[in-house]
């Protein structure tokens, strides 16, 4: 494929994926409001459009038109840069997530993935590590003791659970033998899904990911009753919307990774004419990701919050030894079979 | 295809900036960051020479440098916190009780 065709196809893929991701982020807010409302025995958004489906549009317009409170006591450069960097890192990790197989569009063909790096999983972990800066710098630059405490707590929590997140994925890597996300999904053909081979790793990954994205039951840094609003106390309108969007984009990334690594990605029954064979894998992928987003919301509105010392003790004293034990057992079994 | 000396030059510039920061800065955290900058310059040299001599050991050795840098950063920051608790300052010129 020539270089111009490669560049044009990559740009088209990036634009499409980015558009779908931002729409998914907006509608995950809708999902959260609807599901939380039904769990709490009420309706949720029903007025704006059928089933409240245009509510994200109304929210977007609100965020754009709202007045931005400009405080004189904040450290301006970091105050503006923190939510932007948080959003940028949250959105960037979608660039290595594969959605489906090879598709042929006329004379050209491409994988349904923006780029297939052979260290794709490490790139996602690296971007997750860099996402801590948005939270820490937001808390510090707000020049406010509640924000500083919330920012410190949030960043300490995030770097603690990154360790067990990474270690829980090593079991999957030992079985697969490659860091490329496409290879990991290809190794799960014929219902050899990694959820059956690595159930403990799946639960460690899910718990660590909930803590990493600062969602209940690990959302003490942004708990309303504890710290006003934690690290985004001083933020209003568009910057607050950026934090909001980056949280939901991180949730989407975690859901995508969970399906790719443990539930077989886009693998599922495929039949019919070629056009259907190209679309069905993407459909299975979206269904599985939707299930994980639903699980996120379900857990949030069911479980109470951890206290901060319980949270840190759980991460270091329970999840980390469990993840290491999982690696040891997996390595022993793989070495015994070889 | 660029000469290897360009990579070594970049590595040398980073190392020189690290040395300069170590000498002229007075805040102890910034001095620590200059040490990390020096270590990064050395890492770039390792990887550049690994590319030239086709020896993967150069890239493996970068891991050991990173691990040592991480351990040193952890212990060093703990010492800084302990010093701050007793002397209430982060300026190295003020931590001079043992001076003649």
């Amino acid at each position, binding site marked *: 494929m020539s270089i111009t065709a490669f560049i044009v196809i990559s740009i088209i893929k990036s634009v499409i994926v980015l558009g779908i991701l931002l729409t998914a982020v907006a509608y995950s807010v809708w999902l959260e409001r609807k599901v939380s409302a039904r769990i709490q025995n009420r309706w949720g958004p029903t007025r704006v459009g059928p089933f409240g489906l245009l509510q994200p549009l109304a929210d977007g317009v609100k965020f754009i038109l709202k007045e931005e409170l400009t405080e004189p006591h904040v450290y301006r450069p970091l105050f503006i840069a923190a939510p932007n960097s948080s959003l940028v890192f949250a959105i960037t990790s979608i660039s290595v997530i594969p959605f489906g197989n090879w598709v042929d569009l006329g004379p050209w063909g491409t994988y349904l993935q923006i780029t297939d790096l052979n260290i794709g999983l490490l790139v996602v972990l690296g971007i997750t590590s860099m996402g801590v800066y948005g939270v820490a710098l937001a808390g510090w630059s707000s020049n406010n003791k509640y924000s500083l405490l919330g920012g410190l707590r949030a960043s300490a929590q995030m770097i603690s659970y990154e360790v067990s997140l990474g270690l829980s994925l090593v079991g999957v890597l030992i079985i697969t033998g490659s860091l490329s996300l496409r290879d990991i999904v290809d190794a799960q053909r014929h219902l050899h899904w990694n959820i059956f081979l690595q159930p403990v790793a799946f639960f460690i990954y899910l718990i660590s990911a909930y803590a990493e994205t600062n969602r209940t039951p690990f959302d003490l840094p942004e708990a309303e009753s504890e710290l006003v609003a934690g690290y985004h106390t001083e933020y209003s309108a568009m910057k607050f919307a950026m934090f909001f969007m980056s949280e939901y984009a991180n949730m989407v990334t975690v859901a995508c990774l969970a399906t790719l690594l443990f539930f077989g990605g886009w693998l599922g029954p495929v039949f019919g004419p070629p056009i259907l064979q190209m679309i069905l894998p993407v459909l299975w992928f979206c269904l599985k990701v939707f299930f994980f987003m639903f699980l996120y919301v379900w857990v949030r509105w069911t479980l109470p919050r951890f206290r901060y010392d319980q949270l840190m003790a759980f991460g270091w004293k329970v999840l980390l030894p469990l993840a290491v034990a999982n690696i040891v057992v997996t390595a022993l079994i793989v070495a015994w079979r070889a | *295809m660029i000469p290897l000396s360009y990579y070594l030059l970049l590595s040398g510039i980073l190392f020189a900036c690290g040395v300069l920061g170590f000498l002229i800065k007075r805040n102890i955290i910034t001095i620590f960051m200059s040490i990390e900058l020096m270590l990064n310059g050395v890492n770039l040299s390792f990887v550049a020479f690994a*590319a030239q001599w086709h020896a993967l050991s150069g890239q493996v050795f970068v891991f050991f440098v990173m691990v040592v840098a991480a351990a040193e950063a952890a212990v060093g920051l703990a010492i800084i916190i302990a010093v701050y608790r007793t002397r209430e300052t982060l300026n190295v010129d003020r931590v001079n009780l043992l001076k003649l």
Partner: protein
Amino acid sequence: MLHLILFLFFGTICVAGAINLLAQSHPINSALSLIAVMASLAGEYLLLGAEFVAAVQVIVYAGAIMVLFVITIMLLNAGKEERTKGSRIAILIGVPGVVIGGVLVAWTLLHRPDMQTVPIGALKGDPSAIARLLFHQFLLPFEVTSVLILIAIMGAVVLASRPEAIARPHHSTPGPQETRKLVATGKDRR
């Protein structure tokens, strides 16, 4: 050509970040410049083909060690630096000295008769190849570094904890009633 453009792009960010680290007076700005240096160094490693090293550079260096620095700066609330007599002397002597040394080294490096070139992506640092080296040839240093990290963790925890938390590990900080008693009798300060 593309190789040179990419090298200059990442190299300029590296050098600019390094000089900004020296020029800024507030440590948080220096920390952010250092993060920019580390991220662009990861780009340089990718140009040399060391993909695994680049990923680990971002995860460990830019994503963990620098977070430690930023958290410490936030915690200790380090303000802007002050100029003392020692720092003025160091600037007067140090800057010309290091600049002269750097120019000498640059001259020696750039004016060699045989300039060996490296192509883009010179040595492919495959994770499996690096792992094979790490666990066969470099096994002893690998195990020693894990012990080193354990010692560093223990040392950092001991050094950064409060003295009374070690002396009386079950009474770390007094509750509200005890604090009121301590304040009333003037015993809350050393």
